[in-house]
């Protein structure tokens, strides 16, 4: 069991589900930024009736559709960057760790030998395994970004909160003669949060009162996924709709009324 490490900075993402249209711009931006190859086979699998594509699709950010039978909501799910990450404690190769100020859970591809124990332990299905070598259509490999290395067949990968953007923001702060550990609000935002047309994704240091997320995580409408497992995610969700909040965790019938009122929030 990993022990809780309290960092002075806690990079957090707040996703307002009531503002998410499910348009997919975040997924497209993430794929481009992080050099995720387009997968034609995956489409064939979807069309090919009944293939279990869920865990074969390479996607760092997945948009889930929630419904209570009449209403609908969309829930984008990146890696939760848990405060108590279950993946870290099980990794035999220390390929994934949580050891940097800010609390982003790392994934070091050259160390990973593909045992997929982390995938089994992650309650959010945030990790994906490369069953195959990534293949780009001819010429498209010239358009790779310099930000993220290409992952080989046989390794696990996941969302990094666009960690390279944190590095760039720190570099920019150093060049400007500012403290790289005191980035202003908006200096570091992952690709998904930057492009979101409805501004459903807010990003920042949840411990810094000058960042917008500081207030948002303290809202009575804020909740986290499967909070009662004790994983302490750094991704927060907001919804004014009680049924959406209720779907964030597994509740017994006698707990639902209390849980639906909100208030399950942490700083």
């Amino acid at each position, binding site marked *: 069991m990993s022990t809780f490490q309290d960092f002075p900075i806690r990079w957090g993402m707040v996703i307002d589900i009531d503002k998410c249209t499910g*348009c997919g711009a975040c997924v497209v931006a993430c794929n481009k930024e992080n050099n995720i190859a387009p997968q034609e086979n995956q489409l064939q699998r979807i069309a090919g009736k009944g293939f279990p594509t869920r865990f074969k699709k390479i996607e760092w950010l997945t948009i889930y559709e929630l419904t209570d039978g009449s209403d609908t909501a969309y829930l984008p799910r990146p890696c939760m960057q848990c405060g108590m990450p279950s993946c870290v404690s099980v990794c035999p190769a220390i390929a994934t760790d949580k050891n940097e100020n800010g609390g982003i859970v790392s994934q070091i591809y050259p160390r990973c030998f593909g045992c997929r124990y982390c995938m089994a332990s992650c309650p959010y299905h945030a990790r994906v395994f490369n069953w195959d070598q990534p293949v780009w259509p001819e010429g498209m490999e010239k358009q790779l970004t310099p930000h993220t290395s290409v992952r080989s067949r046989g390794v696990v990968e996941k969302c990094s909160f666009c960690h390279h953007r944190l590095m760039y923001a720190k570099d920019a702060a150093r060049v400007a003669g500012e403290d790289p550990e005191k980035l202003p609000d908006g200096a570091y935002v992952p690709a998904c949060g930057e492009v979101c047309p*409805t501004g459903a994704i807010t990003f920042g240091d949840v411990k810094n009162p000058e960042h917008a997320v500081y207030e948002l995580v303290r809202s009575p409408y804020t909740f986290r996924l499967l909070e009662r497992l004790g994983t302490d995610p750094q991704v927060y969700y907001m919804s004014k709709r009680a049924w959406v909040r209720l779907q964030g965790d597994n509740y017994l019938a006698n707990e639902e009324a209390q849980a639906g009122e909100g208030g399950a929030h942490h700083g």
Partner: protein
Amino acid sequence: MNRRTFLSFAAGAGAGLMITPIPWKLTDDISIWTQNWKWNPKVPKRNVFFAEMASKLDPAGTGVRVALVDGVPVGLASSQDHPLSGGGVSALAAAEVGLLMSPARVRQPLVRTEAGLAPISWSDAEALLAEKLGRAEGDVAMISGDDTGTANEVFAALMHRLSGSFYMMPGEAQSAHKALEKLGGEGHLAYDIEGADYVLLLGADALESSGTAVRNARAFSQSHPSGQPATAKYVYAGPVLNNTAVVCDQWIQARPGAAASVALGLAHALMERGATARANGLDAFRRDVAANYSPARIERETGVRADTLRKLAAELAAAKRPLVIAGSEFGQGAGARALMAALGLNAMLGRINVAGGVKIVPEAPAVVQGAGSAASRYSADLVPFLKKLAEGKASAGVLMVYDANPAYALPQAELMAQAVRRAGFTVSFSSFMDETAELADLVLPSSMALERYDDVYTPYGAGQAVYSLNRPLARPAFDTRATADVLLSVARRLDIDLGYLAFKDVLRAKAEALGADWKALGRGAVWTSAATTELVPDLSAAAAPAPRAQGEGLLALAPVAKHNLGSAKVALPPLCAATVRGSDLMVQMNAKTARQSGVAEGQAVRLSGPGGEMTARVHITEKVMTGVVAAPLGFGHTAWDEYSRGLGDNAYKVLAAADDPETGLSVWSDTRVNIATA
């Protein structure tokens, strides 16, 4: 040799072989060579530079910052200062960079030979086109799908000089121009959505596929601060809980194509409350509304309950700055009626020419002689022309198609493909091998927006006049050229002087005519103007009875457009492939409709409508109102690439357009279909 010696020899050979390295080496080689995977491509290790551009693929004209490494576009970021993006990027604009190297791109000019399409040089291709145009003078037609570019002026002027006809692909911009024309105005219909405190969307999918969707989404976001009370109310009326409705404060279920009726029903309810308008032809409007659009009748025809309608009218009347935006649920086929009715309703609410209401942005001055006004370029109705062409009742010696895919993305798609085949000589200027290009006799690939000079002037629905210039950010990846330049060169071969040698000069003239700074535009600055044209609408025709639904089926068809799945111009981009959900490919209906139709979840069905048939599996969801079947647009491609081809079926095939002689614009937003198990 006896048995004993044979066995001894065999055992000896076996043991001998085992002590040599041969079996181990072979095993090792097998394990290596069966797992000899390709090397991973290496990522570049250079600095990233950013340059601004306006998306030409996204009809919302979103501004994006393109990330370039060594002159190669590798990624994108949001453009905070662009008035049409405000920091947001749509899925379509986000995918535009990745489409540069799409397998579907046409890599060089192609000409049809007996063996199929074969490469041809640009100079031979231009000579061939000039010859064909010269011979077919008076019998040429051109279709353009570019709603925002000055390139249309070059095309229209060339058609004018060749006595040909010029058509725009039908869409919201055409509906808006036609509606304004019918109401006695001219210019661009603009919605000041940021200034509104109550936004009623009638059919218009304003946060996803309608108008300046990204800007609208930002306005929605500003008025709905997370965790705080909203400062504006957004209401969506339509048949499907689409990407817009899902975040709106209220979803009112209304049958497909009901926008005009609901708007006029609301006008009726407002008239009951004593509302009036500053408009001409008010008496005729009042008479028509009173006679044909009573709330009880609206309930029967559209499914919107009379008391809901009255409540909505009361909310609109009580709001300080209400705004009504109407349109087709899928961005085309609304005709002019929906927008005329919505303008009538906005006039009743006193929301024309005011902040937070409807404004008219003046047309940009034309710079190519003979191009005519924007309204005149939108005046011809494409669908009836193509129908006649397919049936042999009209002719086109040369048919040129730019930035559009009429063989796929129009009602009765199969008939439209037939029309393209029937044309004497079809020229496609598509960047991609789309359905129309596959049928063409000559394919002259256009460079993509990243590779050419182009511009964007005030897309439909923008709140003010906006002008952005795109300059080539990357060298063309293939042997492609900007179509406007190609046609300027072909015009010279025909001894037609359009007044310019290069399209860049046309754009410079446009910038000067607008009073914009060419150099600043080149650096990515956006020219804006708050100038508006006063409109006192003539409402006499705004409430005239509209054409009936097409088809005799029991269910109403609601096509759904989602920009991550592509658009009328572009098939599912490779980068968007991951965003396709299984249910996206299915036709959707609610449990009650499924029960009434006798179909179950996952069942394969055939939808037959007035235009044709499509097959799909059924997904049951309460996101669709009773009596309606929702069908996704963007699938069923037969051309393009492995990412989009052969995936699902094309819902455009089922639609059929109804003539509307009074407005001169066909309508296909209200189609009835039958459903049967396939």
